[in-house]
């Protein structure tokens, strides 16, 4: 686009920015703005068919009215000169909590995760009444009837982050809990949740993170028992309801239980179940549970999905694959124990794994996975492409595959006449250095601009920590390497308490963290639960070991956060 044309585009769209509209909603009724657009002379990648090297897309009333090389531009349409631009179907972030206001972060913390995505927070059970279903007989974190739709609040500033990465729609799900609730596909614009909504409910979401505050279940084992018992109870609830419906006479009416009722579509395989699972063993556990209850599973996260590729393929289980590749810390602690090879390998291999999954024939869609900077989304996908993933496969994983998985491929995922006019427009090829310049969401134009809030430097908990653990046996220096994915923590403990992997880890945006690991002292192996608070680059808290008085820990990590994604150049922020 020639400079003057580009300026014209900006001028044309700036007046229409929904941001401004929303700001005025309270005082002014919405204007009747003409809604016909024609993008002309652009390279069009419809995904549903061959690339149109030079074509036109006509948008009217929020949907694609026409697309093709020889489409006429309606006289009333606003023209957008697409010369030099490539138009893709609007990207769909296949998993996250976009649209859900983040809980207030600890002021002293690092600003939480997500850099403007807003969304990795969630209906945190402790954050307020929004995380709890009214009148549920089940505890917080075990209420599958929760609908993400009840928590979505459009915040243009927060949505600017994913928009800047070209994301026009997303699967948004509650971010915490065991039975976390039900997700929705939303478009990333709208005056309210109802306007944003594309489809709800989409899937039931299940996570394996134990409750942070004690209480049953406070272990990974307990999580599985809760899952099992609740699913069994739901099966029986369905039978009781059915029996009562057949003939209520003489039978005590079953207690109404919306939580159990919400599981019935999943048990009937009418609704997919998304399991948050990163490691090989988490994925296998999810698949085992799905098999036990004949559920229709989808794996979300899937950092080690390539290690389970055969089984995923055989059982036709799709993966919502994280593009939040682990990063090494900028500064190393001189006193820290070296990272295990396993961790190094995970980091170096992360960009290679999507290609492996593709090669194995596993269906997958990309999800942003709580990237620290929204610019990482495309950088990391590009890195996957340069590590062997075919670019058309990458594109499908951002468009049509998630649309199909979520049952909205009749509306989203390709550039076809009649579909929702969600478009992502780039200058240059996306996977080889191009960048997103503008988008259409629900037929309205948006500029891809850097989020107003600066991205956090690194994650809340990720990095190499040197800790002193004070137990009855004395002080034990250890190194704890943590990797954070959304609110979940993985990692390793090494040093004076032996070496072991950590599990059941989680951290809130406010820095409250918890994990368990095995410690060995004086020839005895014990399970230790670390719970505490992260403030900036220090953490402290308590260590609970069965049979021992409570211990404490304090620790620090080097300042500087994580390094930029490796294997790809740092993208300049749009504009």
């Amino acid at each position, binding site marked *: 686009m020639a400079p003057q044309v580009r300026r014209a585009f900006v001028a044309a769209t700036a007046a229409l920015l929904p941001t401004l509209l929303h700001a005025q909603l309270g005082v002014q009724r919405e204007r009747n703005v003409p809604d016909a657009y024609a993008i002309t002379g652009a390279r069009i990648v419809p995904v549903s068919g061959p690339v149109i090297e030079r074509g036109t897309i006509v948008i009217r009333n929020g949907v694609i009215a026409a697309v093709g090389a020889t489409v006429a531009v309606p006289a009333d349409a606003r023209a957008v000169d697409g010369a030099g631009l490539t138009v893709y179907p609007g990207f769909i972030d296949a998993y996250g909590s976009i649209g859900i206001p983040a809980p207030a972060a600890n002021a002293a913390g690092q600003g939480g995760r997500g850099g403007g995505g807003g969304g990795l927070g969630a209906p945190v059970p402790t954050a307020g009444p929004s995380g709890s279903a009214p009148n549920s007989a089940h505890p917080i974190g075990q209420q599958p009837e929760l609908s993400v739709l009840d928590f979505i609040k459009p915040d243009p500033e927060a949505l600017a982050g994913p928009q800047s990465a070209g994301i026009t729609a997303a699967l948004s799900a509650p971010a915490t809990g065991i039975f976390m609730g039900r997700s929705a596909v939303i478009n990333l614009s709208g005056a309210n949740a109802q306007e944003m909504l594309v489809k709800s409910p989409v899937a039931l979401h299940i996570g394996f993170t134990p409750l942070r505050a004690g209480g049953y279940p406070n272990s990974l084992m307990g999580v599985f028992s809760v899952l099992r018992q609740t699913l069994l109870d739901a099966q029986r609830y369905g039978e009781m309801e059915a029996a009562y419906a057949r003939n209520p006479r003489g039978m005590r009416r079953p207690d109404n239980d919306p939580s159990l009722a919400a599981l019935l579509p999943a048990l009937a395989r009418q609704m997919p179940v998304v399991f948050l699972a990163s490691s090989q063993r988490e994925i296998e556990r999810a698949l085992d549970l799905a098999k036990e209850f004949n559920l229709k599973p989808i794996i979300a996260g899937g950092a080690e999905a390539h290690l389970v590729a055969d089984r995923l393929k055989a059982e036709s289980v799709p993966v919502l694959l994280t593009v939040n590749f682990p990063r090494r810390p900028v500064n190393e602690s001189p006193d820290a124990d*070296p990272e295990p090879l396993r961790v190094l390998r995970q980091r170096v291999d992360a960009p290679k794994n999507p290609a492996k999954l593709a090669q194995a024939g596993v269906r997958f869609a990309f999800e942003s996975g709580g990237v620290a900077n929204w610019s990482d989304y495309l950088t990391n996908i590009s890195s996957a492409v340069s590590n062997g993933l075919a670019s058309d496969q990458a594109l499908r994983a951002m468009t049509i595959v998630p649309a199909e998985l979520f049952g909205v491929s009749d509306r989203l995922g390709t550039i076809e006449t009649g579909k929702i006019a969600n478009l992502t427009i780039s200058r240059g090829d996306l996977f080889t250095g191009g960048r997103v310049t503008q988008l259409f969401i629900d037929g309205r134009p948006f500029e891809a601009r850097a989020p107003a809030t600066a991205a956090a430097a690194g994650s809340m908990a990720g990095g190499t920590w040197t800790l002193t653990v004070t137990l009855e046996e004395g002080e034990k220096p250890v190194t704890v390497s943590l990797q954070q994915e959304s609110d979940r923590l993985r990692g390793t403990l090494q040093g004076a308490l032996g070496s072991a992997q950590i*599990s059941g880890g989680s951290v809130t945006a406010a820095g409250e963290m918890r994990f368990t690991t095995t410690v060995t002292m004086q*020839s005895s192996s014990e399970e230790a639960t670390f719970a505490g608070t992260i403030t900036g680059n220090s953490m402290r808290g308590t260590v609970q070991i069965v049979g021992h008085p409570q211990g404490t820990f304090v620790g620090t990590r080097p300042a500087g956060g994580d390094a930029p994604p490796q294997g790809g150049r740092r993208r300049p922020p749009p504009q």
Partner: protein
Amino acid sequence: MKRLLLAAVALSAATLGAQQAPRAAAGRATAAATLIKNATVLTVTKGRLENTDVLLQNGKIAQIGKNLAAPAGAQVIDATGKFLMPGIIDPHSHSMSDAINEGSLSVTSMVRITDVLNPTAISIYRELAGGVTTVNILHGSANTIGGQNATVKLKYGRPVAEMMFPGAPPGIKFALGENVTQKNRATVAIPGQPAPARRYPTSRMGQEEVLRDAFTRARDYKAGWDDYKAKVAKGEKGLVAPRRDLELEPLVEVLEGKRLVHAHSYRSDEMLMLLNLAKEFGFTVKTLQHGLDGYKIASEIAQAGTGLSSFADDWSYKIEAYDAIPYNVAILMRHGVVATINSDSDERARRLNIDAAKLIRYGGLTEDEALKTITYNGALQLGVQDKVGSIEVGKDADVVIWSGDPLSVYSSAETTFIDGDIFFDKKKDLEKRQAMAKERADLEQAERPVRATRTQIPNEDDR
């Protein structure tokens, strides 16, 4: 093709070591035959056989004898001057588990260690290097009735499903004493969270009550199901089955003798309480775990038909352990109790052979008796005595070649077989170290293309 596959299996098992072995190919071929020549064979159940050959074939011990002929394609290992013993069985382990305690409630019989096994835990490999092949992974001792245990073969590098001991009877962990009463636990508030409340029970009195209550409920639960099944059998229609209760189901299995109880206990009075309660409810406690004061009631334990798994000589680490004596196991065995020693530790598990030797000093066990405490008796306690625990034809090929007598501190495990496959080999391990060093250098290089000139690797002697 088959050869290639076999080679791959052997390689992945023996050389990968600390690395995570690739996921096993479906339909794994059974190991090639292995003929171990001219070893001193400690059969455990049938004495010591000098200069004897043992043939491992199809995952089993196929032949034991002199001058055995190697089948075609078998690998032959000259074990002259070396000892062959059954793989060590550790009846009390918490290795390779992503969670150990569900300590929130007093009864957590619904939780299962099987759900949370971590086949990549490095502790597995280190235990293999100590000659251990089978472990009983128990729930912790946080509560009176803990979770369900997992009997596992340490097939490091294989998926969890292949590590589960085929046919091992299910079990459950109970716990008594001060870990359960939490007398030793401070109730300091975690920042930002309310101070934890005391969990019932906080005394040994309450522990008996929790058990009695749980088994009373289990009995009622079983009765409810029995009624239902009777009605169904009579052809009644339109019945809705009783609720399945995952807490009580395993306790019903205990009552029916289908699930083994392994009970953490220290003081003799609490052990006796449990044995009597079990008798009242009609089941047998399979093992007392730790049971450090068991020697004070050896006759009662023997009479109950209960086994005991203890430490060889650990003591005095807490008040409950202050009367522990290293003669415990010997006294129990002399009274007819099936006794074992265990590790309860990723560390100690690596040297159970030395712990067994201590029992010769402290209680005068014979060498075979000492070996039984880490092999055959463990198999009995886990209900897998038909498959492992001794070197006998037809048993699983879970055997270990030692550099010398395993009851000598100067000996070390050299090659560890499970189901005929090698999972630890001392020589291969040395080769693996070089490969790991190279891989680390490569990975660090791959990660730091920019900093290649200013490498971050500290002085070589700092690592």
